[in-house]
């Protein structure tokens, strides 16, 4: 290891740095625009790919589906409807259990309790019923699940009696077949998502919900669950079947399963849709492109919400919310979809009967029965612009990277523009401390004269963490004063959002930021933002892309402007992308009419629901928004306002 002085290599790195500093302000916005155009182009038929079966063991549709007992199905539905009318306040578990027991299945009850954490804190009880059809051809090592939520009359959702009747009818049919190699579990749940989450938690002995959800134990089990189909049937005639895929935190089921659901519907000549939208007849045309782009954006909107609901159900209160109970299976590595059969008058084409739908399910289960190993081939990360098309992670990542790369490039130029002093090590330490969540802090201010960037980074993060931790106690406190939970959460978040606007005034009073201090703060903020969006892209590309598209321009322009109008404009732009504003905008976009009172009420409800989702189900959207996105926003706000 020796040293040489090389005259040829002289200043080459400086040259590169100068080129980067000179051209970056032009290149970053161009890449941003190019990335967005590229991404939007992916919805065009020739630029994405057709779904295909990667798992050959599925052998879909090789057999003729034989279910034909439509009269039995109708009888069961009628009986259940009568039972439901007799007991409007409870779930007719005795009736359901009797039906399964008559078939000779093993039937078990499952009780669960939720201690609602917010407000006054009430306790909810629920009961599920499940029946296990033991596989005649193997030991109970593997299982498939067919589940349906039971909905009481008067629930906000349309009744689902037909699906429960279908479960019983299918159980009766499946019972007579000899080819099952996997146990089949028929599961009727109560309280929508909560019932499924509790049942899965008990099945796997894996507590969820921070001890709030007492799932208890199960009296009987089948094997390791390979796949699950959740069924929702709204009427006895079916215009089309919608396949819901989005799960908790944006997780998606294996594309093979999704493809299989669509394929078997296609084979049985039932219309099938994704995001409630059928395919355009001429996908190559301009109208076809617009149609699939809209489908893609619908999927992104519901995936970005991070809750296992199709069509961002929380916000669309005018139409019935869609609950995708399949979303909870995904977190246990169980591939699952919800089939939602409905009779939509606006949908053209022939109507099918329930026995038609039963044949679809029969086909799916016979296919799944062929599985030799867990779903592992095909894609887990994709977006769907049409029922038979997908955009894989390899296709959507490059345009996403282009949209986000400006953040990284700007961070690099900020670093390069820092004056070359003796304490770049100190800076490095500082940056390191800040990025690892402020944990490694305590090492700024090497010299008294040095600007203190650390408080500007740590204070917002601490504020975000305190906000998140304080929401539950706040609702309890305000409940004592008679405030409803929804208003308490809203008021709490609004107070923090407005109050934190004063943060730059407080931090800058302690230590004014010098030019290099501001550059350093920009650099740290941009790196953290870059880390956030690239990490989010792995979990939930839709959310990541939406946040990146909105935040890249403001992050690139977040600096101190000496002219007052420019500063005002920058502040306005920032306020437009405040997490709180974004939430409001998302609700307003989903709301049917733009009456501000209705939007406000919907927003309050959405925030409370997001908090419950985070506490009970482990949805991370609110957590990340409070502890990372809000602090980042505040750092940018500091940058704009610290002269």
């Amino acid at each position, binding site marked *: 290891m020796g*040293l040489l002085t090389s005259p040829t290599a002289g200043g080459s790195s400086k040259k590169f740095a100068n080129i980067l500093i000179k051209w970056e302000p032009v290149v970053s916005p161009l890449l941003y625009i190019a990335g967005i155009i590229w991404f939007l182009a992916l919805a065009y038929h020739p630029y994405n790919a057709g779904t295909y079966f990667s798992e050959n063991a599925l052998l879909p549709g090789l057999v003729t589906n034989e279910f034909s007992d439509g009269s039995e199905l109708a009888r069961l539905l009628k009986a259940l409807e009568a039972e439901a009318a007799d007991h409007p306040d409870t779930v007719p578990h005795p009736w359901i259990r009797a039906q399964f027991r008559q078939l000779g299945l093993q039937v078990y009850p499952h009780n669960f309790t939720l201690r609602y954490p917010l407000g006054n804190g009430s306790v909810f009880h629920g009961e599920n019923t499940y029946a296990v059809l033991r596989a005649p051809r193997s030991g109970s090592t593997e299982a498939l699940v067919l589940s349906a939520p039971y909905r009481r009359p008067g629930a906000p959702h349309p009744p689902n009696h037909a699906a429960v009747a279908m479960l019983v009818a299918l159980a009766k049919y499946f019972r007579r077949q000899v080819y099952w190699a996997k146990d089949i579990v028929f599961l009727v749940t109560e309280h929508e998502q909560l019932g499924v989450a509790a049942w899965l938690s008990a099945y796997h002995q894996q507590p969820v919900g921070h001890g709030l959800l007492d799932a208890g134990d199960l009296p009987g089990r089948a094997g390791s669950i390979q796949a699950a189909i959740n069924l929702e049937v709204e009427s006895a005639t079916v215009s089309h079947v919608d396949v819901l895929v989005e799960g908790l935190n944006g997780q998606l089921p294996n594309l093979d399963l999704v493809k299989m659901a669509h394929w078997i519907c296609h084979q049985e000549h039932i219309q099938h849709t994704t995001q409630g939208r059928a395919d355009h007849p001429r996908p190559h045309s301009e109208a076809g492109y617009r149609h699939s782009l809209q489908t893609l954006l619908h999927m992104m909107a519901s995936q970005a919400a991070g809750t296992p609901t199709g069509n961002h159900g929380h916000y669309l209160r005018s139409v019935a919310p869609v609950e995708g109970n399949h979303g909870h299976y*995904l977190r246990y590595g169980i591939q699952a979809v919800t089939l939602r059969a409905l009779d939509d008058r606006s949908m053209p084409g022939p109507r099918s009967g329930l026995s038609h739908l039963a044949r679809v399910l029969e086909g799916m289960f016979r296919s799944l029965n062929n599985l030799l190993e867990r779903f592992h081939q095909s894609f887990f990360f994709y977006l769907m612009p049409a029922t038979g098309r997908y955009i894989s992670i390899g296709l959507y990542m490059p345009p996403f990277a282009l949209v986000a790369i400006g953040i990284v490039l700007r961070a690099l130029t900020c670093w390069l523009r820092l004056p070359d002093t003796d304490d770049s*090590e100190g800076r490095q330490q500082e940056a390191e401390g800040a990025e690892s969540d402020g944990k*490694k802090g*305590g*090492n700024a201010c090497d010299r008294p004269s040095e600007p203190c960037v650390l408080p500007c980074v740590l204070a917002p993060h601490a504020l975000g963490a305190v906000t998140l931790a304080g929401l539950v106690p706040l609702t309890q406190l305000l409940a004592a004063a008679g405030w409803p939970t929804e208003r308490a959460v809203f008021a709490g978040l609004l107070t923090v959002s407005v109050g934190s606007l004063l943060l730059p005034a407080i931090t800058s009073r302690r230590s004014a930021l010098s030019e290099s201090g501001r550059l350093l703060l920009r650099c740290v903020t941009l790196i953290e933002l870059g880390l956030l969006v690239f990490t989010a892209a792995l979990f939930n590309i839709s959310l990541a892309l939406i946040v990146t598209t909105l935040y890249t321009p403001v992050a690139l322009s977040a600096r101190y402007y000496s002219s007052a109008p420019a500063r005002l404009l920058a502040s306005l732009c920032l306020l437009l992308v405040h997490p709180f504003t974004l939430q409001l905008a998302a609700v307003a976009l989903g709301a049917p009419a733009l009456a501000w009172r209705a939007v406000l009420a919907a927003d309050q409800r959405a925030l409370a629901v997001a908090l419950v989702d985070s506490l009970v189900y482990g949805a991370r959207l609110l957590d990340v928004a409070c502890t990372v996105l809000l602090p980042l926003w505040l750092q940018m706000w500091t940058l704009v306002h610290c002269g």
Partner: protein
Amino acid sequence: MMEPLLLIGGAFVRLYLMHNDFFKNLCDGTIFSTPVSSWKRVTEGSYLMGQDISPYEGDMVHEPPLTLLLYNLLLQNFAGIVPAFFILVDLLTAHILKRTADKFVQKQERPAVRSGAAPPSSPSPVPLIVAAVYLFNPCTAVSCAALSTAGLHQLPLALVFYAAVTERWWVCLCSLSVSCYLDLYPVVLLAPLLAAVGAAGRSRLLAALLAAGCWAGLLLLSAHALGDWSFLRSTYGFILWTWDLSPNVGLFWYFFTEMFQHFESLFIATFQINAFIYAVPLTLRFRGQPVLVMFALLVLMVTFKSYPSVAEAGLYLALLPLWRPLAPHARYGFVVTCFYASVMVLAPVMWTLWIHAGSANANFFFAVTLAYNAAQIFLVTDLLFAQLKRDHVLTHGSAKEVEGKPAKLVLC
């Protein structure tokens, strides 16, 4: 004044992490505890000992006998204070690291102050930074919360650095043998230490004999306590032959999962040699700076050992601020920082996606571990290169011109 505050803060962070569901789930991952440092395996060993079965008979326990006996004692009598024990060990390590930094900075400043070139300055913040980085580094904090026994392994290593800086060779060599006894790899630090002992005018042979004797004594004691030598296979054999290929942040597991059995021994030797081979050349090249060489070897050791965990990275990251004077000459500070930050975020994310969600696969996590190890290599080469450049500048001045043109220092 600041130090007690930092220590209390560090203890609180660890206590909080121990009681947090989210981190509990994170800790089941092998990022934080490897087969050689997993607490679950220690409890298994303790149970086996209680049943009068040799803990090393199966393939479960790889903890050295003496520490296993210590943990057994704790588990049998004071099971409740085990978390407190690990927290105390971490605090002690942080304190020793701070004292090390104190002495190191004093030594650096002394010549300049004595010659009047620099006024006696206010106390340097570096020691506090060192302690803070060790205490609040997520790597060490979460490892401690996972009760990874790697936390205890860092204590003698920190003591080696302290004793080397304060030139207490006797203590230094003894703690080195303890460290070798626990982990085997720290034996590489012997090369720079022997050079330093020689430079201080003591006998190298005596020092080597002392270290070897101390190590042998510990082994004999273990054999005496257990009654046989079967532990050698389960501890050192297990480390050297790398039988367990469960994923960790190191380089071995992915490579050897793919490897044909036939070539295994050749490549095991090739991989293991990396952890040791740099000791002598680096010692020869950086004669005057034993602590720098020890630091570089520590990083290389963590990179190339068979079962590394991020707890070990915590130690060298804490000592990094000691090399502040080299910072102006370092080139990749920004790159390395970004690498470390992204790896720290992405490793648990990829782990979750692969193991918990089942959506990703081994390649996702492997890519992150590759980036992590690349960052470590970048860090150590950049640091050593910076030292060379600094030496050059100190002897030749900072003007870098060849025949009037600006020039650049390059490695050859």
